[in-house]
Structure formats: structure tokens, C-alpha cells
């Protein structure tokens, strides 16, 4: 699979809540080996689209294709077993486990639920090292501050050896330093062939990190392109009036 293959695509996805169309015929794509950003003002439909991709929300119309397969009607767990992993905006850590066990259990789950044989212990150590969590590995996860807890969620997702990593507002609650280190980690992962897609409010992070960006407003896709193209798009500037768009 080459670096620019499309791994995930949405086609004309529609979600209605009562009379309100939260997502209106949106088509985006996420490519292997890249970091893709999904941005837009509050209420633009980012999270709803995100939920359609992960399977927490059933779209009213449209198709979602992952690794060449139509997954529109697939349960969240099946998508995960196909190689999709996500983090949560409101963190969903396993609060009774240590940092290490939070990551290790993801390996346990993979072993028990897919045919893949992975060396859980060794893989846990590798992921801890990779994400820079070794120093807090034995802490209670409930004592870890938000910024690093977000990294724990990424590490946990990485244990499943995913092809697509979906991040829901990963930078919220992180200090500037932490965000920088975090961006570096994601860039490295993408270079190794992972497809990363993030929903994010931190525009500097998105502009600096993503190679492609999709912009949603009022449920509709108003622009797709490179950071430079997005910053010059009149539609995007209009949608963000009153909000500073910084490179």
C-alpha cells in the first residue's frame, strides 16, 4: 500500500436529528501515512461525522468505506477489529487499572478477540517507550493529569496495531509543550504508515501537523485541501469570522 492510498472514505453521509440536519451529504477521505484534520466551528457536525465513522452513530444516508469495504452497517467493535482505533474527547480510561495495565489490556483484548498473536508484554513496553509514558507506567491512571492521560489513550489505541487512528480533540487539556511533543509523536506514526485523523479546535496544531484538512460548517463540507489552500479559502474565512486563523 503506497503512502497516498485512500484508507477511509465517506460518501454523501447524512445524519438528521429530528428536523435538524447535523451532517449533510459529506464526503471526506483519509489517506495512509498522512495526518488529516477535521475542523469547523462549534456545532459544525464534526463529532457527529466522527461518530458515524466509528460506528457510534448510524447515518441516515450515505456510505462509509474503510480499507475497500463498506462498513456503513458494521458495529463499532467489528470496525475496531478491522484496524480502526480511536480516542475519546471525554477521556474513557480504565480507572481501576494502572497506566501500564490500561495499555496492556488493549493487547489482551486483541489476543482474545482476533486471531492475531501478539506478545502483549513486549508490545506494551515498546508502546510505553514510544509514547514516552515509561516514567508513569506504574501510576494509577486516575492520578495522571489530563494532558498525559490523552497520550495514554493514544498509546492504548496503538496497542491494537491499527491502520487508522481517530483522535477526538486530542490537544484539549494539554500544555503547549505537551501539544508539541504530541504533534511530533503523531508525525512519527504517520511516517511509519499509520493514517491519522483528528477532530481539533487548536488551529495552529492542525495547520502545522496535517497534510490535508476538511472543513465543516453547519453540517456541510465547505473546503478540503492542504493547510495553505484552506487558509486562503474564502468560504473558510467566512465561516471563521471572528476567529483568528493562524498558521
Amino acid at each position: 500500500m503506497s503512502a497516498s492510498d485512500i484508507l477511509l472514505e465517506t460518501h454523501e453521509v447524512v445524519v438528521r436529528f429530528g428536523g435538524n440536519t447535523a451532517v449533510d451529504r459529506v464526503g471526506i477521505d483519509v489517506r495512509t501515512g498522512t495526518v488529516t484534520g477535521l475542523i469547523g466551528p462549534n456545532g459544525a457536525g464534526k463529532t457527529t461525522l466522527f461518530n458515524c465513522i466509528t460506528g457510534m452513530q448510524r447515518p441516515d444516508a450515505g456510505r462509509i468505506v474503510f480499507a475497500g469495504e463498506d462498513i456503513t452497517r458494521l458495529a463499532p467493535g467489528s470496525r475496531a477489529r478491522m484496524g480502526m482505533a480511536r480516542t475519546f474527547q471525554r477521556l474513557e480510561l480504565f480507572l481501576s487499572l494502572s497506566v501500564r495495565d490500561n495499555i496492556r489490556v488493549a493487547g489482551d483484548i486483541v489476543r482474545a478477540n482476533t486471531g492475531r498473536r501478539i506478545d502483549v508484554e513486549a508490545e506494551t513496553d515498546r508502546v510505553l517507550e514510544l509514547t514516552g509514558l515509561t516514567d508513569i507506567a506504574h501510576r494509577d491512571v486516575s492520578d495522571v493529569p489530563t494532558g498525559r492521560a490523552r497520550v495514554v489513550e493514544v498509546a492504548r489505541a496503538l496497542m491494537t496495531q491499527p491502520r487508522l487512528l481517530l483522535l477526538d480533540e486530542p490537544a484539549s487539556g494539554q500544555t503547549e509543550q505537551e501539544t508539541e511533543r504530541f504533534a511530533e509523536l503523531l508525525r512519527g506514526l504517520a511516517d511509519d504508515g499509520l493514517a491519522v485523523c483528528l477532530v481539533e479546535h487548536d488551529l495552529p496544531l492542525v495547520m502545522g501537523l496535517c497534510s490535508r484538512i476538511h472543513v465543516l460548517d453547519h453540517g456541510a463540507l465547505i473546503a478540503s485541501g492542504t493547510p495553505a489552500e484552506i487558509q486562503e479559502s474564502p468560504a473558510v474565512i467566512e465561516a471563521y469570522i471572528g476567529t483568528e486563523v493562524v498558521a
Partner: protein
Amino acid sequence: MFLTFTVLGLVLGAVYAIAASGLVLTYNTSGIFNFAHGAQAMIGAFTFYQLQVVWGVPTLLAVAIVLGILGPLMGYLLHRFIMGGLRDTAEVTKIVVTVAILLGFVSLSHWVWSPQDARMVRMFFGADSYVSIGGVVIRYHEIICLVAAAGIAIGLRLLFTKSRMGVVMRGAVDDPDLLRLNGHDPERVAAIAWAMGSTLAVLAGILITPVGGGALEANALTLLVIDAFAAALFGRLRSIPRTFVGAVVLGMASTYLVAYAPSNWTWVTNLRDALPMILLFVVLLVLPQDRLRGAAVRTRERYEVPTVRRAAIWGVVLVVATVAFRQLIDDSSVGTLILGLTFAIIALSLTLLTGYAGELNLAPISFGAIATLVAFHTGITGQGLDARMSLTGLVLGVLAAAITGALVALPALRLRGLYLALATLAFGGIVSSMVLRETQPRSWFGHEFALFPQGTIIVWPLKVGPLDLGDQDVFLYTTATIFAVLGVGVIALRNSGYGRRLAAMKDSPAAAVMLGQRLVRLKLSVFMISTAIAGLGGILMSMALSSVTSDHFVYTLSLSLVMLTVVGGIGYVSGALFGGLIAGAGFSLIVGTFNELGSAHPEHASTFSIISHLILVAVALVGVGVAHNPSGNMSSIFAGHRFLAGAPEVRYAAIGVTVVLYGLAYAGVIGTWTFGILVAVLWMALPALGLWLRAERLLPPEALAARRGVPLELVGVDVPYPDGFGGQLDRTLGLPARARRATPTIPAQAQAPSEEGESHVRV
């Protein structure tokens, strides 16, 4: 005839609807599913009986007192003193607290209104006041039921759609903070809802007894909660109109069943009693799957997981202690101790299922009943006093329990934990009202036999090779060993990848699914392991009892076992030991002791009887106390003892004292009771004792400094610089942890907030 039965069905449905709407009301405003709903109805009906029949209060006044004062007051007090304290606790804790209230009400009613006496409640205006429409007789009482239900339906509809109060009520569970922000008081709203809900329960209670024949019976009324729940399920516990539809379906179905089933189907009356429970399973099957929602909220329950090595050491200690304790008690008490340990094995099934996986089984002993029956029919060999249970019977019994567990759990597994809890309670009801009533022979798969012959079966002790449980001492030691081995096994399971997956599922189902975990499969497997353990414990329990009747599997026994295990600490194997010993041995010991005292001193017999009843009610109060200490007693004891790690000499001294006391007891200088109480008090008070004797080695520096009035910065100047201080400073400053030293750990609340940022945990 058809019309008459339709009217009867409608009336029954109307009463179910009244009960069910109360349940839905409290559940939706406080988020607590009230298992004591039926028990409240029962208290209402008995109070009404007491007023109207015993004291001769005019009917209208009696109704006014029960509906106007008892109902609302009961609801208000429950909310004010108990339910209000349940915020931020796990669903299990909430369920157990209402279960404790149920048990409290049941023992209260048994105390005041002896279950041996028959009581009748007549219809309002008597059975002779009726109107006849086209040949169909409708009694005034039935009209009252129908009118009351219709009035409540309209009233609730108006309340929820038209009144401000109703709208606020609907929001009370979803977002109490938002309500508060808008100037409402969610607590007040919940209090009103509880008052209304319990009034509806009481109303249903006084209406239903004459409809069902007039005999006032505490158990049947208490289980009204299952009928109400089955009806409420039609509306997914949310919609009042659909709940009414469900109630009418339920009422009609049970009336038609009795009316039109062939008369040679002798089991139809049993089936009718079990119908709501069976219907409940059917509705569960067709309910759509719950939507996956993130909800990793920190609850107040906290459990530590011991290592397998520690667990193994404690397992050996338990067996040795059992052998040592056996030497102190006389032969007649051994049976009681065995019974306690077999209950502890059943409780162990809850440690795994509830403590580790967060699911609930409210009828563990009913699974024991299934296992017992299968073992009884397949495993008894030999004749007369030489008859024994074979290993095959034991294994088949355990397998049967596991398979039954799978069948019971499957319909509910796609749904939230509450539904599984209710499904198990319904299963307990089915076992009691159908299986255990199969006392007459009938043809089963071509063989003619009774499932539960004559209502009493003799379960002979197990014999495997040289091991013969016919010997009491051997039985006792074997049971203790089985508990120890299973306990260590359960802890080993928790420390394995399987156990971590259970913890993940319990903490955040959404995250576990998004990592690829198949939840239903995992829940099913843990439920089957758990019911297998319950089955094994149940067979051992039956062997310990030897002569077994349906009373030994009554649902209240399961409920008290669950409750006491939570009180002990459901996340701990020791919690199971605590719960099992109290439920299996403690009760009978207490009641037995007071009965003996009563017969020894006849002039004080009534006093002793009151005390023993009081203890039974008090046990329920202990269960209610779970709200304040949701992690259980064992958790508090462990926390205290962890504290003692800095001063091992305190423990050595305690061990020494225990040995000396044992010696005294063995020599007969002090009694067994005295020994038991002294040892228990010694070990429970040990943390306080240690603190008093060895404060300087146990307390963190700040606490110690605060005790002496020395400011923290002068530690090391004015007072000695203690060992643990370096580690404490590191943590406060956010420095990486050094290698672990043998220093006292500092309680979490003493830890300063981290410099790195706010914790992410939602409290």
C-alpha cells in the same frame, strides 16, 4: 365468559399499571431503580389491614391515612435519609441499597404481622356490590381500580407535558447540574417524585390483594416489583403510556391463561404465578440494544487487587484457622460453620461477577437450587445411611448451573446491568414458583419422576475415592479448602489478561468495544463461570443442610447474601467470606442463641424474641449503610492495616495476643464466643491501636507535624526527619518516583495536587 375474563384482566392490568408507573416515576427522576417498590406496597397493604380490620378504623379514614400520610412520608424519608446519599456510586451500590430496604421491610412485616397467621382483606364495598352490564358482573372495587388507573394515567400525562414541575422532573436524571444552574433543586424534585412513587406503590398494594383473592401475603406483594417491572419494560422504563399498555397485556395474559388452559394442566397455576417473570424475559429478547455511550465516571468504590502469592498465603491461613477454630467448638456447631463456608463459596461467585466485572446476579442461590436438583437426580448412589453423592453428580450439577446461567443471562446481556439484575431476580422467582413446586411425579422426556419429590429432598454428602464428606470434620476442612482454592483462583483470574478485560469492560464499555472487545461474549463467559461457582456452593450448601426444602432457596436469602457481600466488600474475596459467614452461619447463630436464651429464661422470652427480630431488621440497616461506605468493610479494614506496614511489631504483638487467647480458649479458661469477639475486636481496632502506640512511624510527616503543632518547613529542624519524607517531597514536586522503599504509603487525600495540571477524572 370471555367478557368477564376480559374485565378481570383489565382490572389486574390497571393495578399493575399503578404500581409500574410509580416505579417509572422514581427511576426517571432519581436514577435509582427501586427494588423495594413491592415491599412498600406490602407495608401499605398490611398497614391498611391493621387499621381497617384489626383496629376497626372506618374504611375511608384508613385509606386516607395510608395514601395521604404513610405513602408520601415513606417516600420522602427514604429519599431524605437514604437515596439522597447515593450520588456518585456504582449501579450495584444503588441496587443493593434498595434491596436492603426491601429486606428490612420484609423482616419488619414478619415481626409485626406473623407470617403464620392468615389474613384476609375484603374488597371495597364488599364483593356483593356490583353493577351488571350485559351479563358481565363488575364489582365496585374493580371499578375503583379502573378509575384510579385511568386518573393516574391522565394525571401523570398532564404532569409531564403541561406542568413546569414535570418538565423539571424529566431533566433531573439527565443533568442535575443544569437544573441547579436554572434555579431548580434536583433534590427537592427527587423527594417529590419519591413521595409520589411510594404513594402509588401503596395504592397498588391495597387494591391488588382483594383482586387476587384477598389473602394478604408478604412475599407475593414484595415480588409485585417484578410484575411492575415487566410492565415498565414495555416502555423501556421511560414511557408511561407504554407502561400502561404493558400492564394491561400482562393482566389480560395471566387472566386468560388461567381461564382457557386445559384443566389437566396442573402446572398452570404455577405458570400463572411465574407469568410476569416469563414475560419479562420475552420482552428483554425483543428490546433493541442499548446505545453505546461513554461513561467512565469515577465512582466512590475502590478495590485493591492482591497478588496471587499474597492470596495463596491468606488461603493457607484460612484453612489453618478453620482447623484451629474447629478445636474450640462442639460437634453440633460444626454444621453451622460448614453452612457459613458454603454460603461464602456462593458469595465468591459475586466477587467475580460483580466485584470484577460489574454485573449483578440477585439470585445466586437459585442457581444453587438448579445445581442441587441435577446433582440429586444424577449423583446419589447407595442405599440408606451409606448413600452418597458421586463426583459425576457434582460435576453435572455445576455444569447445569453454568448452562442455566447462560440461558438466563443471554436475553439481558445486550442491555445495561440493571436489566441483568432484574432478569436474575425474575429467574429466582421462576425457580421458586415453578421448579420447586414440581413436587408430584410427571413425565419428563419419557421418564416419570418429580423434580422436587414431596417438597423435601435428602442430599447425601459427597464421596470421591477416600474423601468422604460424611465425616463432619472432613466436610468442614474440605469446604474451607475449596473456598481457599477458588478464592486464590478468582484472584489469579483477576490478575490475568481475562481479568484485566473484565476491569476494562466494567470501567468503560465504550472504550473496550472500540478496542475490539466483544462485550456479550465476555459477559456471557464471566456469568457462566460465576453461576458454576454458585452451583458448586449450592450443592455443598444442600449437602450441609442434608434435608432440603424450597424454603432454603427462597429469594430473600439470595438477596441478603448479595447485600451482606456488598457490605463486606464485593471487590474482595474476604468480602465474600464475610458475607457468606454472616448470611449462612451468623443469622442462625443469632436467632438460635436468642431462642435458647428465651427457653432458658421463659420470663424474658419475649424480650429475647424482640432482640433477635431487631437484629434482623438492623442487618438491613447495615445494608443501607453501604451508601456511606460503598467499598465495603473489608476495604476499610485493609486500608487501616496497610497503614501498619511501617510498624510490623504491632502486628507481631497482635499475633502473639491471638495465640495466647487461643490457648486460653483451648484450655477452657475463656469461652469460644469470648475468644471470637476478642480476636475480632483486636484485629479491627489494630490500626487505631497502632496509631496510638507508634504514631511517629506510621503517620506522614505533615500529619505528624500537625499533631505536634510543628510547621512543615521545620520538619528535620524541630522534629526528626522521618524516612518517608523524601518520597513525599518527590511526589509533591512531581519528581520521578525512586525505587520503592519500605516506607509507609501516604493516604491519597494527603497528596498535594500535582503541578502538572488538573486530574482528568470526573468526580
